[in-house]
């Protein structure tokens, strides 16, 4: 069994290597000097990051007491976060309605198949293309970004959700059906609570994804921090771009930590929480005072 697994991994790696070799047409010389080029570019253009992106812009005049709140980094990131938040919520609502229609264990084939095809169609356009489309239709600004992200979220989250629904245990569904619960009632009262852990994890992942991609769609004029990244790229101000990328990285890490905290409410691992130092000390003190009372 162990050897078979190694064999499969080796074959897959070999196939991947052969495919890559075909893609680069055997011209591996291109990689020569690549690393040193990157080092030069990093040292000369990106390092050190230019933190002036966290200082107040010269125009319009900052009316806030703390300069940071008028900075490009803060304003751009806040807009990206707002776009990501709204589009994740709207996308989640759209996705959950469609995914419950697309799951084969919840709906007959004649309903689930067309919905799946619709979700594939929505998903096949990347968020960047959706953004370009909405910029053409509505014009520049965050609304185009919100709509682009919402549509992409519906397609992407919809697939993740119906796959989770199809993988759930059958017995709660069978019990609900036999008892006479309606299909919407089964979805709301059985399917969603039973998969709450996965759904929360997916919504947090999607939010993080939308924050990261908010930077990309900003490049085509759909608002957010990407707009500023695009401007700095045009003016070859890579040190400012690097500072904004660090900011995005920090926000992504914070979202990941938030996701961990949110999921602990429904996670089975959350049932057996590791005691913190604080509650261990408090308990020890309580015990001590109790034994003191007895004495």
């Amino acid at each position: 069994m162990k050897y078979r697994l190694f064999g499969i991994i080796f074959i897959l790696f070999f196939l991947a290597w052969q495919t890559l070799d075909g893609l680069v047409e055997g011209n591996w010389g291109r990689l020569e000097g690549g690393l040193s080029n990157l080092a030069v570019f990093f040292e000369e253009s990106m390092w050190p990051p230019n933190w002036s992106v966290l200082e107040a812009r010269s125009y319009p005049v900052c009316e806030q007491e703390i300069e940071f709140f008028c900075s490009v980094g803060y304003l751009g990131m806040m807009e990206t976060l707002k776009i990501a938040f709204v589009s994740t919520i709207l996308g989640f609502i759209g996705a959950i309605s469609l995914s419950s229609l697309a799951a084969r264990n919840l709906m007959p084939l004649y309903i689930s198949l067309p919905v799946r095809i619709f979700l594939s169609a929505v998903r096949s356009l990347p968020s960047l293309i959706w953004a370009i489309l909405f910029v053409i239709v509505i014009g520049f600004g965050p609304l185009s970004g919100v709509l682009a992200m919402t549509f992409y979220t519906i397609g992407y989250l919809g697939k993740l959700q119906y796959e989770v629904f199809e993988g759930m245990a059958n017995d709660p569904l069978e019990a609900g059906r036999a008892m006479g619960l309606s299909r919407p009632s089964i979805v709301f009262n059985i399917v969603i609570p039973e998969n709450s852990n996965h759904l929360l994890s997916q919504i947090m992942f999607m939010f993080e994804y939308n924050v990261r991609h908010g930077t990309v769609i900003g490049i085509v004029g759909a608002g957010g921090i990407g707009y500023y990244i695009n401007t700095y790229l045009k003016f070859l101000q890579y040190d400012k771009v690097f500072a904004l990328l660090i900011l995005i990285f920090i926000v992504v890490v914070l979202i990941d930590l938030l996701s961990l905290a949110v999921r602990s409410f429904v996670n089975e691992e959350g049932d057996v929480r590791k005691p913190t130092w604080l509650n261990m000390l408090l308990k020890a003190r309580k015990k001590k005072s109790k034994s003191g009372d007895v004495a």
Partner: protein
Amino acid sequence: MSEDAILSLNGLVIGYDQPLVSPITLDVQEGEIIAILGPSGIGKTTLIRTIAGLVRPLDGDFDLRVKRRGGLGYIPQRLGLVRHATVAHNVSLGARLSVGWSKTMFKDRKERTLEAIRTLGIEEKVSEPVRRLSGGQQRRVATARTLAQRPQLMLADEFLGELDQTNVDIVLGAVHELVENGTAVIMVEHHEDNAKEFATRIWEIKDGQFIDMSIEQWTSNEATGEEE
């Protein structure tokens, strides 16, 4: 076929690809408690699932004269609980089927849910997610759900298995409460002692043959078998 029967099986043939049991023809009346006995894998669960409408019969048919919404209570072998939801949520799934649309609908549902939870003695766990409960407590939740539902026919698959005597008594107490209100009960049971204690009728599946008999007949057959 009797018109007042709650369930009539008319030459019902059960199975997935091959028939598991000889054709079954019989009636079930209100207030009957039926235990299905037989070795593992002989078709007891398939019979229950067929009556619950989850498996199509291979031949024959059956008339289930219960309300479409909430008339049938079903406790599968793995209980069918929503593990990540609270005890109250699970039990309220039954209550929402037994309380019709009215101004006091939500209040009535809540009262019926709490009443069932109290009967099964799990009021301390009302806000706990089901996944944190022991096997016995989970079985009590499943029973409370059916009790709150007040079905006309209750189907249960081996739900007394692995329960200690205290839990068996609590659960059977709730089942008897349902039966007093006219519910018919069909239970798959592995332990003959349990069957003797609560059943009024026995369906035995043996070597592909279906045998329907009263509890008295079955007890005397058992006694004769032991003497021989």
